[in-house]
């Protein structure tokens, strides 16, 4: 919807979405002749939870004003736009014409450049794979190139761009494949699972849902029984009023107080949520797709709900063979370590590989937990969880990370050196410096 400054991280441009700390930045805006000669990091709408969107001591080069839609091929469904265009804007312009994004993450307030740089995934990963699979081409500025160049899937640079955390260049434009949809609705089914401390029910529901385009589970990680709610959905038609998201948006007016954020509040919240879901009369209904994909976007600045000290999100994936056994073990470990968690999400990934060098998804099961204001005990518990993930060949998601150690990151992503080799020498991020500099050499 036009110049959407109010959707740029509304709290501060010097924080990531998870908040918790303030970085010192100088700010610049990408224009038709961007200045690339110094330590900078391209940034879209700042929805990454941790420091992949932070460049402490350097420059943030903001792209959110480069948001023009440049061409749409309505025969093949290919959209070319500037990299700062938001998925929110694209969805709203294209939905009335019967087109939607091929992959959407949990918020629509991300730019195309950010979606590519983090190779985001969505509830359709099991049938569609990650966002990077739908990039037809993009153009990059690099400090070591004379002018913007087009990078296509066949080019050597392409794998470094997809999931490249913005390090491989400043993206100017991208062409992405959209998909036709019957209308603005999602036919959704809800089922309860778990209670026995295992995730087998949830995995079984996944297996039975291969005909469903979207699947995701909400899981109460504070409950020994690991009870949860499974959602599956497919595109459906709906009334014209659903073509645009509900204009009446709430804004989180203040930071939540600390007392509201402890383990007992989380337990109470999770229990209330589970009860609300289990008492719903309709287990099958058609709802606006905005509500299905982006429930949190209905509240502006929802990250304030986690208070001034912010929160971190911990998202890991473990391979299919290990999931059944390892996921409950990691969740039990975090529960026993008294790590509070709201609204954990569980999702089984498919085996469609992304062209990205550093893509997070792999065939297996992923869990994402929100942890408010982690203390040193929480962080130590997460370090141990990292080790459990690494032992079975899994990995932790950089786009959400603010704390993993360099050693762990390099174990999760041994291919990081290939990205480092193609990184634009003028681009860096707090995240990249943190995970590529080993503790021994840190001053």
């Amino acid at each position, binding site marked *: 919807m036009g*110049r959407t400054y109010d959707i*740029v991280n509304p709290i501060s441009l010097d924080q990531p979405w998870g908040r918790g700390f303030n970085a010192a930045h100088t700010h610049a805006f990408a224009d038709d002749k961007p200045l690339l000669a110094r330590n900078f990091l391209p940034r879209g709408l700042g929805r990454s939870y941790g420091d992949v969107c932070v460049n402490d001591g350097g420059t943030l080069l*903001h792209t959110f004003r480069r948001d*023009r839609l*440049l061409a749409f091929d309505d025969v093949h469904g290919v959209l070319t736009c500037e990299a700062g265009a938001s998925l929110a804007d694209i969805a709203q312009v294209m939905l009335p014409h019967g087109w939607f994004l091929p992959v959407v993450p949990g918020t629509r307030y991300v730019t195309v450049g950010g979606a590519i740089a983090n190779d985001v995934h969505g509830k359709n990963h099991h049938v569609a794979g990650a966002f990077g699979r739908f990039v037809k081409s993009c153009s990059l500025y690099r400090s070591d190139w004379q002018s913007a160049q087009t990078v296509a899937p066949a080019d050597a640079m392409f794998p470094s761009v997809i999931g490249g955390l913005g390090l491989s260049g400043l993206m100017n434009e991208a062409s992405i494949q959209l998909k036709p949809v019957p209308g603005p609705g999602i036919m959704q089914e809800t089922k309860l699972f778990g209670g026995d401390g295992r995730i087998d029910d949830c995995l079984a529901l996944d297996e039975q849902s291969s005909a469903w385009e979207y699947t995701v589970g909400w899981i109460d990680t504070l409950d020994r029984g690991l009870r949860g709610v499974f959602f599956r959905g497919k595109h459906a038609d709906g009334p014209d009023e659903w073509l645009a998201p509900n204009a009446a948006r709430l804004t989180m007016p203040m930071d939540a107080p600390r007392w509201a954020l402890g383990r007992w509040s989380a337990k109470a919240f999770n229990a209330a949520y589970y009860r609300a879901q289990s008492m719903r009369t309709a287990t099958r209904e058609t709802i606006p797709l905005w509500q299905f994909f982006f429930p949190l976007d209905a509240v502006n600045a929802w990250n304030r709900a986690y208070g001034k000290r912010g929160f971190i999100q911990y998202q890991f994936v473990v391979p299919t063979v290990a999931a059944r056994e390892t996921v409950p073990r990691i969740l039990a470990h975090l529960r026993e370590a008294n790590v509070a968690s709201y609204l954990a999400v569980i999702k089984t990934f498919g085996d469609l590989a992304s062209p990205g060098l550093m893509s997070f998804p792999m065939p297996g099961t992923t869990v994402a937990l929100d942890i408010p204001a982690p203390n040193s005990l929480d962080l130590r518990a997460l370090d141990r969880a990292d080790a459990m993930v690494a032992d079975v060949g899994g990995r932790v998601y950089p786009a959400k990370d603010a704390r993993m150690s360099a050693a762990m990151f390099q174990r999760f992503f041994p291919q990081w050196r290939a990205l480092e080799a193609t990184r634009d020498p003028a681009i860096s991020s707090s995240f990249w410096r943190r995970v590529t500099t080993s503790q021994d050499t840190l001053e």
Partner: protein
Amino acid sequence: MNETNVVVVGATSAVAQAAIRLWAQRGHTLTLVARNAAELERIAADARVRGSPQVTTLTGDLTERKFIAESIRSTNAPRIALIAYGSLTDSARADTDVDYLADELQANFVSAALWAQLLADRMAANNAAGGSIAVISSVAGDRGRGSNHAYGAAKAGLTAFCSGLRARMATRRVHVVTVKPGFIDSPMTAHIAKKGALWATPDAVAAGIVSAIDKKRDVVYLPGFWRLIMLIITHIPERIFKRLKI
């Protein structure tokens, strides 16, 4: 309705771009005028994707008399026009650089008045349909202030010109609306985390302009609370006002 042609002068400004998106979504045809050809082409492409059936671009020096006349002559019957360009004059430089001062007054007042006059005549000549012209002036034009005397004076002139033009055109089916925005969130102010309530986004200002044209308003302050602020400012006695650092 889809036959409506909208002329936007200064199409690369943030407010103009946001207004163009709203008109493009309505399916209006557009004539976009600006100096930066490359940016203008991107804005035109964006308008096409968003639903405008036809977008024409004109590139040139917006302050040049010949370009103004030729642009209007070459434009298909305009029904709506937005004059959106301006230059925020540096008062300190204007104090010492007379050529700069003259150029700024020419840009902010003389050339904008010419666009408004010629567009109004063109719309009136097309008298069955008539038209609407929105001219972006400024709250700064309501009273000359020490901090921006040259800019304020040019905008004051433009406000007075629009008021007179509105009266002249009242019987000729041409509606003129004077738009007085307050502080607009520009790209370079976007990083100031706490800008306070006085700052409005270009989106909000653009929505106000489109609505003012729809409702045939005469003078709009955007956001509306600026009417109250300026009411107070214009009533401060000059003896006191001249000593205020505002």
